[in-house]
């Protein structure tokens, strides 16, 4: 682990217990409990509007639960504060890139916020990994969705976060980049990261995930580990 920031906070599990979140009368999550452990690659499936984004936002400390608690290791987010955010990586569906800035500037800006000693070097390495080294100094607005997706992923992983939250990371990726991403995710698992991945793309994650969770109308269930294709298991879970 690089000494990126002054933070020494770390954890090897995330525990969500009895978390509900509602917006007015609309309930986004209700009574969700789960534990994520280091080295695990967990999938999060569910129809649109089932609360996947809310759950990811909640784990990223951007949304507060209406009820229930989230613990990182044994610390609530309020206790860990800024140091906790240094250990979180969140790739939302909207990518959080500045379209007017170049790929390099985007990475360097976020690297700067993380207080790296050498943001330029880190950015260059990340651009190499994203396969965007030759487009590094072009503004992001000219990029295809797949290129942006790759860039945003590198930005998410720039600071080697412990908890990696990915919302639809396969969107817009061609087959080769999809395979590269899958390989990358497996590496993250080996590096003892905690990865939670929300997706619709069952083919891409087939055989990749250690566990699969399903959110339906704000409630969480776990898919039974059986020897059937993911899609069928998911269908069966939704039909119940």
């Amino acid at each position, binding site marked *: 682990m690089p000494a990126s920031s002054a933070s020494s906070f770390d954890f090897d599990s995330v525990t969500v217990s009895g978390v509900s979140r509602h*917006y007015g*009368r609309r309930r986004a999550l209700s009574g969700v409990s789960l534990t994520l452990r280091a080295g695990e690659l967990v999938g999060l499936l569910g129809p649109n509007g089932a609360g996947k984004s809310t759950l990811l936002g909640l784990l990223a400390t951007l949304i507060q639960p209406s009820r229930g608690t989230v613990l990182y290791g044994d610390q609530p987010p309020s206790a860990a504060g800024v140091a906790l955010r240094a250990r979180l990586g969140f790739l939302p569906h909207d990518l959080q890139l500045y379209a007017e800035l170049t790929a390099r500037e985007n990475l360097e800006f976020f690297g700067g916020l993380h207080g790296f000693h050498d943001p330029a070097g880190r950015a260059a390495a990340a651009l190499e990994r994203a396969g965007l080294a030759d487009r590094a100094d072009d503004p992001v607005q000219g990029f295809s969705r797949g290129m942006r997706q790759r860039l945003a992923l590198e930005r998410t992983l720039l600071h080697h976060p412990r908890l990696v939250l990915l919302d639809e990371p396969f969107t817009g990726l061609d087959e080769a980049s999809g395979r590269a991403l899958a390989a990358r995710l497996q590496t993250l698992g080996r590096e003892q990261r905690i990865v939670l991945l929300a997706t619709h793309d069952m083919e891409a994650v087939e055989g990749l995930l250690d566990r699969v969770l399903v959110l339906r109308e704000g409630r969480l269930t776990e898919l039974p580990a059986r020897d059937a294709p993911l899609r069928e298991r998911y269908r069966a879970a939704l039909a119940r």
Partner: protein
Amino acid sequence: MICMMQSQRMFAALSVAGLVMFAAAPLLIAQAPYESTMGLIQKIFYFHVPGWIVMFLAVFIAGIASAIHLFRNRPAADRLALAAAELAVVFGLIGLVTGPLWAIKAWGVWWQWEPRLTMSLILELTMCAYLLLRRYGGPGSDKLAAGVAIFAMANVPFVYLSVNIWRTIHPATSVVPQLAGSAPGMFGPFVWCAVAFLVLFTAMMAARTRLEAQRAHVERLHLALEER
């Protein structure tokens, strides 16, 4: 349920007390001596000034309660702030209506762009903005509105500051102390009216916070129903 009954009885007692005091006020005011330069119209002050006092009190309650909600996350404080903000608008309205009725007689114009009036109008607008934000801000606007209420409260000293910098033609600063000093007959009714307004304000606050508490309860019931 018992608690509910109790608070209802409390509310009833308070409102009755307030209304009786309020109803008796004109009798007392009628007996108060005439102010020498302004005559009869000066008697509007007995309602005008307490109206403003209560409004400022309400603005401060809203600001402090909002700060508690914002930094300590207490929904009860938020309900109190909302009630106070609404009442600030109501009592501010009383001040804003009675003011011009006095002004047309005393100054010969309905409205005078005089700092204290202007700033009271600004405060009234701020509290209206608070209510608009709560009404149209969508879910989560309670925290945002709390920020606005804190800012509104912080704005009040600047009201006074600007009054002191600007020369004013508003008589209130001098009339109230003079009432006490030169005409004890006026001071009694004035205090009576002020207390009547405050009792009324407390009763309305209690009713309004209760309404908000009931609403929160209904929301909880809704969520509990959906839960099953």
